[in-house]
């Protein structure tokens, strides 16, 4: 089932992901890291279901482990020396901590990017680009139209060539590669020659006239406005905390955590809400439906 947040206006989607990804990159304090990571993981699981686990174990964990191990090996800053490497460089507590934080940050950012890739479908990008990059957003739409067409045509060409005994089938890598290149070559000619008709069709429908508008099915309605203001407020608070040093952490030369002041506490309460916003919206919608159904 499609989640609730995906159905919001693309502007809301993009603003959210831009904000959360930037904050995940910048907030290296363990408290915030944990929430960035968990929020990303939970939303990713919601979006992909069981398929998400494969991504986590085969892709995410190894990369996080690498970041955690490599940091102390190659970064020797910090004052608390724990041991010396065979090449004589020190291993410091600070760099181990930074490595752990970097691994967490890495994981969170990758998860949020993956969510962003699922939610921000191509038509949302085309819509968002449409106003400021009209030609390039059209180009994107055209390329997306051509790709499945070319993949299908490659199959047709491959079968035609097989009729002549020259397909990509057969044994040996060399024969396969030669067949593949032959198909690519035929596909290129076909694509370029047929594209001229596409250009004619664009011209026939007035492409190139000044003052082109861009149409979309998306509408920024009341629901989008409310969520947009909420997320802007939350993100602003987090950035303010970051700028004021309340949410930050310093690793080098020695680890320094900010003091606990009322504003720090406030931000610590608000940031998790931002991280779990998509899931909160989803749950709210679910509740609403249960309520409607119970009244029937």
């Amino acid at each position, binding site marked *: 089932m499609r989640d609730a947040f995906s159905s919001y206006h693309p502007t809301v989607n993009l603003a959210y992901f831009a904000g959360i990804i930037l904050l995940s990159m910048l907030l290296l304090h363990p408290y915030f890291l944990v929430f960035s990571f968990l929020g990303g993981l939970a939303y990713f699981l919601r979006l992909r279901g069981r398929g998400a686990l494969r991504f986590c174990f085969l892709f995410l964990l190894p990369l996080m482990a690498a970041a955690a191990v490599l940091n102390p090996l190659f*970064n020797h800053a910090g004052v608390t020396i724990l041991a010396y490497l065979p090449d004589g460089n020190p291993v410091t507590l600070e760099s181990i901590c930074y490595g752990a934080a*970097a691994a967490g940050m890495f994981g969170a950012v990758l998860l949020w990017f993956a969510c962003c890739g699922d939610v921000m479908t191509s038509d949302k990008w085309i819509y968002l680009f449409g106003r400021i990059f009209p030609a390039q957003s*059209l180009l994107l739409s055209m390329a997306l139209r051509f*790709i499945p067409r070319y993949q299908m045509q490659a199959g047709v060409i491959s079968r035609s060539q097989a009729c002549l005994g020259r397909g990509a089938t057969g044994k040996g890598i060399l024969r396969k590669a030669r067949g593949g290149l032959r198909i690519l*070559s035929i596909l290129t000619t076909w*694509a370029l020659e047929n594209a001229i008709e596409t250009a004619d069709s664009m011209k026939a429908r007035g492409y190139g006239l000044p003052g082109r508008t861009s149409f979309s099915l998306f509408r920024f309605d009341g629901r989008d406005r409310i969520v947009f203001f909420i997320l802007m407020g939350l993100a602003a608070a987090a950035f303010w905390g*970051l700028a004021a040093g309340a949410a930050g952490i*310093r690793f080098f030369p020695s680890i320094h955590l900010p003091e606990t002041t009322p504003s720090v506490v406030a931000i610590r309460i608000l940031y998790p809400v931002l991280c779990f916003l998509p899931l909160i919206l989803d749950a709210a919608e679910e509740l609403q439906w249960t309520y409607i159904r119970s009244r029937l």
Partner: protein
Amino acid sequence: MQMQPSGPDRKSRRTVAATITAVLAPATVLAGVFLLGDRKYYFVSLLMVLYALILFGLAFERRRPQARELVIAAVLTALSVAGRSAFFMLPQFKPVAAIVIIAGVCMGGETGFLVGALTGFISGFLFGQGPWTPWQMLCFGGIGLLAGALVRQGILRRDRLSLCIYGGLSTFLLYGGVMDLASVLMTFPRLTWQALLASYAAGLWFNLVHALSTVFFLFVLSKPMIEKLDRIKVKYGLMEP
């Protein structure tokens, strides 16, 4: 009625470009230096990459590309993405860089950049978006842009050998170099030469395969592809490169 200037759009594009160069870029550097501490290198560089992509995009829009130009760029982009998924079983063995270079050589650096950047972006939809997407867009785009610029300057010739040399070097140094640099910036608090070296050593095999595959594809594809593109340009009276 006919030549109605598209006032607001053009003006707003110019404003955006000016804002980025005059305000946003310096502000980002300052904010990075004063506010961000340990994350400044990655953060500032990532934003700079995004600014560069936006500025390039604005410059392209300003030219108001014609329908045929746009269609050819879309065809080349789709071919390179489709080519990339055709060879999905062999990691790093892809015709993308080769097609981007050919696009730059035949259709000019701007189209080359566009084809490269768009291929990087669309690949993200098929193979997963990540923090590497903007860097990938910049690298592929840069390879195409440079190819076009060098041909225009007369430094790079359109024959098979020079294209293969350029292709190998640019994929290895430009693409491999910048992508590895990006991963170092992402992982480490600051740039140290040991970390960079280690990352290059780890990525050596990947980058080598990538460079060799580009050389291979250019060796096989460059001549017929350039002929085909030239034929289309002649047949339909397209612009000179």
